[in-house]
Every structure is written in C-alpha cells, then in structure tokens.
C-alpha cells in the first residue's frame, strides 16, 4: 500500500488552497478528484467574485482556478490523482480509490476532506424527466463543455446560483423567459436580480413549479402561485413553453465519506444539511482528519479557499512542520473568514455555525 503524508479529497477551491499551504510547508501531498480536471465549482464560474483583493475580488472563478492550480501543478511533492473516486475512507486513514477499472489503497498520516456539495432537487410531478437539470450542472455543461442545455429555460430559485446561471444562460444564447421563487423576496444579491430583470427575465415571487410536461424529455412546465403556507393555489396554474427546467434550490454537503469514517455529523439546516462537527482547527472528531469548504457547510468559493488554507496550515502544524508566523497567519485567516460571513447575506451562515457551536 502506498503511503503519503497528507491526502486531500477534492481538488476544488478548498482542496487546492489546502494543498498549496501544505506544499509550501514542506509536506508531500496527494490530491484526489473524481473529475478529469481540477477546480471543482471554479471550473464553471465565469462571473467575477465580490469581496476584497485577498478574496480575489473582480477576478472570474476560472481565472482564480488558474492562479491556484498553476502555482502547485508542477510541484515535485504533489501527486495528482484525477478521474479517481474515493470509494472508502477508514478510521486508520486508509483511503480506497477507484480509477477506471483500477482499485488501489493509500494510507495517509493526515486526511483533508474537501468533497464539496451536491445540488438538491425539488419534489414535483415529472421532476425526473431529462431536461430537468441542476442549475450548477447546466453551468458546467455550458461553461466547461460549450454545450447549451436547450433553447428555453425555466429557472427555479432566486439564490445567487439561480440568478447567475440565468444570466450565463443568456450569455450563451439561451432564452430564460421566467424565474420562479417560492419565497416573497429574492434570496441572492439584488445586483444580480436587477441585471437579469433588465434583460427581460420575468421574476415571479411566491411562485413555484407544479409539474414538468413531456414524456421522454421536458416539453413545458406548469407553474403556480403559493399561499402563505407554501401550498400551491389551485386555479393559478400557468403553462410555460420551455425545453429545460433548471433547479437552483440549494446544495447539500457531501459528507458520506466522513460518515463512513465515523466522524460525527450534525444536521444543521442553515448549513445545507449534515455537516461534520469540527474543532477550531477544522479537525473532525476523528484525529488527523480535517474538513473544509462546502462539505463543512454551504458557502461561497471565497470562504472555501480561506477554510482550505486554515485546514492546510493546521494539518502542516500537526504533521510537525515549523511554520513561520503560524499563529499570526491563522488569526488573519480566521478574521478574513469572519469578514466574509459578515453582513446581511452571511446571516444564515452565522446562525448555522452558532447552532453547530451550541451543539459542541
């Protein structure tokens, strides 16, 4: 069995950031990702980031990915495993991997789980029809592979993903006549909502999808208005002519591997679902196993990069690397994370972490 010092699962913003810190500290790092290209959500993010300089403000996700990956990709102590899926994670830090027809195991001193999240679905009639796609998946189809999901899309959900993907669909030449939102207010940034409204997207509040129409694939969608108890109001049904339905209804942390390992996870609605219990060093309840990024609570890529650096630094210290100014760097990173979580849009995250902390 192969042995590495640190094994990172997931080469998205959190995993790449953790790898960078660890390589700089002097560690040997294995980075595993099931995709054929690193980057996770950054591979498809053509929009510019907000925040300050240290959070890569006004850079596009795809550019940030280049900065992060170009810095580490040729490092002699980096072992990159792409198109590799971790199928098993065990308490003695043995990692079972599958790549194509090949199965192998790696033992690591330290494991950093940065598996990210998967998009949620929504219960409605025919929600399994081809043409009903997760919004982030459509973003990948368009921005990574250059393929349109269809000609006309109904967007469901007004969070930032729904708003941004609606805009990016139009950039790709796809029509987005309607966006429905079950709540009575836009849940993403108003600047994004205003932008798509100006481009003619009819944003309907207190409205949801009732059913998808079609037999083999989506040929339309029926939407309806919701009452104060979130129930559809009979008689308000309206048929929209679309060939694609995009669901932007939130994400769930991918904690299956952590659960398999026996790390404690707790259900925190505000963080997207089951999240690992972490100490202030981002270590799970299993010693030597850390978690960072969306797997520890749904946030944005900016926060995932900071969290990745924190986990990377802690893992390097644990592994015995002497780091200059380690304490000052940690303090600065925690402050930076706090800044990102401040303001009205960070309220849900703050509440979620407060609830998670209260359970510790």
């Amino acid at each position, binding site marked *: 069995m192969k042995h590495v010092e640190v094994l990172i699962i997931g080469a998205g913003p959190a995993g790449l950031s953790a790898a960078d810190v660890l390589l700089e500290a002097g560690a040997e790092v294995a980075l595993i990702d099931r995709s054929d290209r690193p980057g996770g959500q950054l591979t498809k993010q053509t929009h510019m980031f907000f925040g300050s300089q240290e959070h890569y403000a006004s850079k596009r996700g795809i550019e940030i990915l280049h900065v992060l990956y170009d810095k580490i990709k040729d490092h002699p102590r980096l072992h990159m495993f792409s*198109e590799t899926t971790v199928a098993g994670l065990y308490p003695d830090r043995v990692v079972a991997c599958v790549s194509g027809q090949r199965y192998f195991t790696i033992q690591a001193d330290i494991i950093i789980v940065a598996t990210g999240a*998967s998009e949620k679905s929504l219960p409605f009639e025919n929600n*399994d029809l*081809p043409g009903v*796609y997760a919004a982030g*998946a459509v973003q*990948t189809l368009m921005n990574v*592979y250059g393929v*349109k999901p269809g000609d006309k899309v109904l967007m469901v959900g007004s969070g930032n993903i729904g708003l941004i993907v609606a805009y990016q669909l139009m950039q790709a030449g796809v029509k987005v006549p309607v966006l429905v939102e079950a709540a009575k207010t836009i849940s993403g940034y108003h600047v994004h909502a205003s932008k798509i409204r100006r481009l003619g997207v009819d944003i309907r509040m207190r409205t949801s999808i009732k059913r998808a129409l079609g037999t083999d*694939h989506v040929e339309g969608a029926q939407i309806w208005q919701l009452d104060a108890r979130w129930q559809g109001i009979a008689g308000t049904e309206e048929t929209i002519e679309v060939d694609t339905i995009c669901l932007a209804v939130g994400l769930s942390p991918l904690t299956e591997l952590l659960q398999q390992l026996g790390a404690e996870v707790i259900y925190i609605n505000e963080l997207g679902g089951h999240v690992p219990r972490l100490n202030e060093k981002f270590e799970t309840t299993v010693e030597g196993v850390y978690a960072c990024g969306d797997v520890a609570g749904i946030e944005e890529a900016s926060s995932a990069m900071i969290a990745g650096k924190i986990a990377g630094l802690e893992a390097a210290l644990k592994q015995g690397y002497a780091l200059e100014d380690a304490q000052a760097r940690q303090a600065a990173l925690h402050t930076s994370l706090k800044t990102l979580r401040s303001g009205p849009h960070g309220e849900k995250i703050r509440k979620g972490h407060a609830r998670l902390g209260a359970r510790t």
Partner: protein
Amino acid sequence: MRIHQHPILDFGERKTIRFSYNGQTLEGLEGDTIASALHAHGVKKLSESIHLKRPRGFYCAIGNCASCNMVVNGEPNVRTCITPLEDGMDVRLQEGKGRIR
C-alpha cells in the same frame, strides 16, 4: 446545441472525436465528456429507471447522482457526466441496473 459565440469564453478549435451511440456514429469534440457530447446532439435520454423504466438524463454533472449512468464499451454504470469521451467508444443507453459481464 453547441455554443458558437460567447462574450467571455472561447472554446477554440477542438479536435473531432468519433464515437458510437446505440450503434450510430456521432462526433464529439476534444474535452467533451460522454454526456456533453451526447447533449450537443440533442440526446437527452441516457438511461431508463430500474422499476418504472422512466427516462433518465443528465442531472448533477459531478458524478454524484447516477442519473447519467450508461453502458460504455460493454461496462454498465459508467458516470458519463465525468467520463472523458474517447475515439471509438461504444456508448449505449442503459436499461435498469445494467448487466455486469
């Protein structure tokens, strides 16, 4: 269904890849996954559900949901959304759980 003009992205010239879908020869482009190449041709139904035989297509694009599982070169349950397209691949619609050779 290819994007030809885009204000930010330039997909450049990409090499053609020939593959077979249910016995029919189709062309994809270098950098495609199996699912993206099929979608570019408007092929949305990738498999049939196990019990009710309902059509299944692309959903998550990260190899997580199993909705895009197809039979590739005789091997069932290949996650076509994260599997790169290769020259000469034999791709088939998957019925139910598929059969392991």
